[in-house]
């Protein structure tokens, strides 16, 4: 039952994403096709249009694949003692923000974590700051405050055990979880 709902929900999200993309690509369609139509013969123009259509379709699928991959990325990692997310996660987070904007009924919980070095209460503060940095970025990019809940677990819920830098790197993170 829950699974079914989840699937329906996912297809709805997907459908909305596709509609959004179709709307975008249709505008760029006409803009880009116009010059081709003017400088070529009828059959060439039709062929070019078809090729262009195919190229756009591939791009659309690629874009869709990338967006789905972005939405599937739900863990964001942080540098030691740093509360700002990594610049390479910007695009992914923008996709999350737009998805939330497009789905006002959806809400997420941002769980901030720290590695075990340093004191526990200070790490609780650090985890919150990390979650807030992602929350604020999502809001700036279209999500609304009410869709976002933050909680810090500090160093209390590591993703992996161990005292090596590799473990620490995996533990300094914010996880985006479905809320509720």
């Amino acid at each position, binding site marked *: 039952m829950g699974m079914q709902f989840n699937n329906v929900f996912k297809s709805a999200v997907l459908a909305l994403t596709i509609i959004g993309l179709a709307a975008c690509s249709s505008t760029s369609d006409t803009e880009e096709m116009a010059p081709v139509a003017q400088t070529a013969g009828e059959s060439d123009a039709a062929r070019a249009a078809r090729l262009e259509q195919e190229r756009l379709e591939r791009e659309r699928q690629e874009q869709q694949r990338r967006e789905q991959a972005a939405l599937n990325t739900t863990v964001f990692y942080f540098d030691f*003692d740093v509360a700002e997310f990594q610049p390479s996660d910007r695009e992914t987070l923008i996709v999350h923000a737009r998805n939330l904007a497009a789905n006002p009924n959806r809400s997420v919980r941002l769980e901030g974590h720290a590695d*075990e*070095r*340093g*004191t*526990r*209460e*200070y790490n*609780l*503060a*650090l985890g*919150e*700051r990390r979650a*807030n940095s992602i929350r604020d970025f999502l809001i700036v990019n279209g999500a609304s405050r009410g869709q976002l809940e*933050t*909680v*810090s*677990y*500090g160093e*209390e*819920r*590591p*993703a*992996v*055990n*161990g*005292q090596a830098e590799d473990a620490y790197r995996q533990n300094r993170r914010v996880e985006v979880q479905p809320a509720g």
Partner: protein
Amino acid sequence: MKKSSLIYLVLALIFSLRLSAAELNIEITRGVDNPIPVAVVPFAWDGANLLEEDIAQIVSSNLEQVGEFRALSRANMLSLPSEEREVHYRDWRILAQQYLVVGKVSQVPGGQMVQVQWEFFDINRERKVLGEVLTGSMTQLRDIAHEISDVVYQEITGRRGAFSTKIMYVSAEGPIGSTIFKLHYADYDGRRAQILLESREPIMSPAWSPDGGQIAYVSFETDLPRIYIQDLSTGQRRQVTNFPGINSSPVWSPDASKLAMVLSKDGSPDIYVLDLATNELRQLTDHPRAETEPAWTLDSSSVVFTSDRTGQPQIYKVDATGGLPERMTFDCFYCAKAQFLPDGVNLVHVRRETRQDNSYGIAILNVQTARVIKLTETALDESPSVAPNGSMIMFGTTAGGRGVLDAVSIDGRVKFRLPSPQGDVREPSWSPYLN
């Protein structure tokens, strides 16, 4: 008569060997310059079954852990007196002992009660300092041993002993994803542990009320960090806070009227004080960076806390009515989680000297002389908690990939590790005096 007492003695010795394996692992890290030599003779016992606890062994361990004493090994004892008339001062002077403790345990007819008669001698002066008889049930033998230790400690040092105190600590057991968190209550040496709270969500920051009757802690049981107060005698508990964001670090003021805490309801963690009588909440700090880990000065007039307002965590002090905080640490990369010792002058804290050294140790800052003494050299030390008499500091650290509890004497010379059979243990919190 004599033969049978000898048999008991042999049995007692065998038993004591077995017991000592379960005793704490005491590590003399640097050794005390002139430790006071004390001989604690195995207590005689007139019962049929073996006693469950070795009182003399517990007293010896207790005294050695604070760093100022050295207990004479049983193997080196020339005689094993159990009462004054069996004591020959010469036996102990030859062994260069300064003090001697002897005793005997006898069954109180018809029941589970025992009587412990014990005596304490000054070898140099060749006189009995004191003697007393303690009565308790079989399950109170450890309490009796700690009581004896407290008296001996106070007689010799003039300072109150803290061997009858308790600790709380948090454990995490089980694999990631199905971890069980527990709040434990135990003797100061980790023995006789009981569970106060068990949860699938994290438990943090246990703290004692000044009279030891109540505890406060942070529990994530609602999926959010919230502060709870629990009564130890009735087990009744209540949620104290439910503000958005972090609700953590509860600490009673020494006068018991207030609870300092950390709330991030206004965007970033700040220090607040809740008046427990009026329920009035006062904000002590207001800064966009993190303010956390409050601890009171002894007179309840100020609160020390950690803030990273300059970039890295440092220790500050603020008046309990608010105002401008005063910075207290300058020469460390990371100084946090401060707590005053009972002398009100020395501040124990977690310290990382430089960005490069990457090691967190327990240190003491004398706020009058600005002198810093590092007590530990392990890498991941945190959560220092001070015994009510200031003789020892217990802290959490990592050994063999798991969290353990260590204690260090205040002079840094003696360390011991608390027994912990499984899982990670962390966040020790030492009780106030309970008697």
